[in-house]
């Protein structure tokens, strides 16, 4: 008998013995548990089981014995309340952390969508950008991003107070305090050593990382690695935290309600503007400064399609993002006790469905085929748009917001590609920038006035234009405009300066052969020929064809 067979047999015998022992044990354990249950009267509360008794149904796990009191016979109300309060905050913290874990996984979704929509010769480079934003963004946020964003947010009741985050820098304008950035929590050191603050850091960090990864899609296939590295620190340390402070950290946009009577100030439940529009506008500025990929436009300025290399990867990535969004939106309550999470989660999925269906239908009606890349963009557009209003609208309105975003994303892709002539390989500007703006504006239109009492320190529920509060819509417009101007100017200047110092773009030779080997030192697919003869796009395709864009596919076979 060979050594391998002997090992296999002894393993098999071991498994059988272990199974037998565990069955015997469970038979033995069940017997005494049934005796008191049968003899006790039905009305009386079930007596606490003896310590160490198994509880297969879960009915007797967690009893009065688990509440720590000084005198078990006479528990006091404060003692019981302390446990209830601890449980409440514990639920919130567990919920917020789990939601944060889901959002973290969205990084994988972004990596797959962006890499799927770009060419095989750049796959290692595109994947690597999506990978490194996670660690770089996190460290940048830990250094100063979190402090600037949340250092002055004050007490967040749902997380047990977050007492140490109490210092905000502000200037006085028009006789009002304009809060600009927080000043506590640098390096997460000192007195922010608090479970509530750590929970907030994790949750806000993964949101920030989502923003950092959005421009990598619009700037893919031509962005120099060194320039990307500097960008990732700049976004996570400064630009994102500042705008996020103004909306979520107690800054001046959130104070528009309290200071100037504009509804509840700029309201963005989970980040249509804070996360997505910031990322989308940065992507726009970056793609403009970087310029289009070689071969993207003809000398006459006509747009040429450059198909992505892996549609299945992009579709799986889209599903991962849609799954992660269940952390993104419902988690933004920061509370598992706020059962509005049911409405938030359902609205989120409804809008994503409407976005995908409308984008697909629009493409079929206009071009005769659904275009998988636009179906995926449509679902993501619906998710981005519902991110701000998800907690404040009814289900039919969520479907409407998603449906509009599905068509809007198609129009926007064509407008940016054909009219603005800005090359965005994955549609990041349209999905995140345009639909992020639509999301916060739609909140100002459709908030139904049943939720959000006391939001941003303003009494009453959040109510949109169509439900009677035009000033809320005005606040949303100010927030949207601020995001566009602040982020665009910041990144346009940043990329221009970086271009002069470091250079943003790879050489023509690198771009033509693919960025994988020259920039990363590794090919994504070394076993396959992924680069053509140097035309800049894959074998079998060439320059543009004459004829109006949008004409039906011409099958030359019939000619």
């Amino acid at each position: 008998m060979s050594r391998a067979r002997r090992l296999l047999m002894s393993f098999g015998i071991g498994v059988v013995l272990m199974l037998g022992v565990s069955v015997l044990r469970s038979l033995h354990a069940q017997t005494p548990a049934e005796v008191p249950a049968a003899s006790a009267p039905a009305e009386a509360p079930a007596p606490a089981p003896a310590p160490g008794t198994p509880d297969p149904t879960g009915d007797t796990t967690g009893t009065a014995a688990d509440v720590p009191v000084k005198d078990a016979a006479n528990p006091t109300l404060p003692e019981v309340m302390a446990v209830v309060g601890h449980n409440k905050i514990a639920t919130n913290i567990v919920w917020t952390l789990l939601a944060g874990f889901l959002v973290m996984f969205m990084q994988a979704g972004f990596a797959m969508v962006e890499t799927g929509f770009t060419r095989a010769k750049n796959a290692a480079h595109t994947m690597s950008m999506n990978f490194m934003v996670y660690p770089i963004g996190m460290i940048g946020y830990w250094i100063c991003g979190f402090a600037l964003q949340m250092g002055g947010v004050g007490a967040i009741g749902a997380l047990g107070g977050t007492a140490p985050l109490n210092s905000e820098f502000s200037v006085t304008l028009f006789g009002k305090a304009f809060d600009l950035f927080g000043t506590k929590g640098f390096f997460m050191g000192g007195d922010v050593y608090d479970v509530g603050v750590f929970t907030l850091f994790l949750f806000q960090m993964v949101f920030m990382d989502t923003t950092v990864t959005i421009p990598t899609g619009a700037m893919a296939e031509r962005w120099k690695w060194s320039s990307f590295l500097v960008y990732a620190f700049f976004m996570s340390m400064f630009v994102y935290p500042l705008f996020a402070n103004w909306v979520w950290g107690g800054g001046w946009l959130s104070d528009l309600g309290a200071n100037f009577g504009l509804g509840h100030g700029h309201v963005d439940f989970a980040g249509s503007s804070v996360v997505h529009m910031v990322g989308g506008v940065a992507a726009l500025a970056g793609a403009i400064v970087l310029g289009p990929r070689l071969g993207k436009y003809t000398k006459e300025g006509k747009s040429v399609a450059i198909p992505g290399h892996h549609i299945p990867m992009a579709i799986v990535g889209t599903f991962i993002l849609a799954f992660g969004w269940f952390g993104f939106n419902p988690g933004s309550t920061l509370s598992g006790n706020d059962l509005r999470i049911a409405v938030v989660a359902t609205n989120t999925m409804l809008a994503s469905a409407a976005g995908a269906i409308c984008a697909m239908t629009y493409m079929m009606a206009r071009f005769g085929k659904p275009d998988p890349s636009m179906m995926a963009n449509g679902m993501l557009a619906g998710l981005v748009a519902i991110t701000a209003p998800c907690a404040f609208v009814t289900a039919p309105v969520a479907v409407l917001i998603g449906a509009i975003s599905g068509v809007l994303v198609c129009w926007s892709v064509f407008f940016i590609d054909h009219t603005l002539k800005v090359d965005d390989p994955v549609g990041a500007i349209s999905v995140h920038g345009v639909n992020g703006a639509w999301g916060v504006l739609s909140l100002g239109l459709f908030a139904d006035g049943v939720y959000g009492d006391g939001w941003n320190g303003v009494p009453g529920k959040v109510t949109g234009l169509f439900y009677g509060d035009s000033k809320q819509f005005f606040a949303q417009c100010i927030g949207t405009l601020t995001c566009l101007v602040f982020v665009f100017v910041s990144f346009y200047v940043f990329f221009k300066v970086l271009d002069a110092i470091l250079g943003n773009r790879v050489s023509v030779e690198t771009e033509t052969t693919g960025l994988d080997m020259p920039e990363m030192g590794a090919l994504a697919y070394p076993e396959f020929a992924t680069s053509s003869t140097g035309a800049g796009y894959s074998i079998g395709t060439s320059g543009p064809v004459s004829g109006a864009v949008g004409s039906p596919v011409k099958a030359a076979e019939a000619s």
Partner: protein
Amino acid sequence: MKKIESIVRPHLLEAVRTALQDVGVVGMTVSEVKGFGRQKGHTETYRGSEYKVDFLPKIKIEVALADELVDQAVDAILKTAKTGKFGDGKVFITSLEEVVRIRTGERGEAAL
């Protein structure tokens, strides 16, 4: 001895292979190729922009065979690879000077 190179539509490969085997062809080499002829390319739309597919995928079948089999083999290809539309492909026939079987060193028709 002749060599037949035929360019056929990819989905008809199995039919052509079977027909060639039926007339006595005992081996072949197949490759995925791209090219254009009278079928030319066609245009597709991706994210609202058009692109031209210049080279269409085809299958190239290479067969080496004895002179007396050539006519039957060409007939077999014509029967199975023809749809009557542009893009059916072509058959190229060339003379073979010599064939060597690597395993045994046999030459000429014995090596086929």
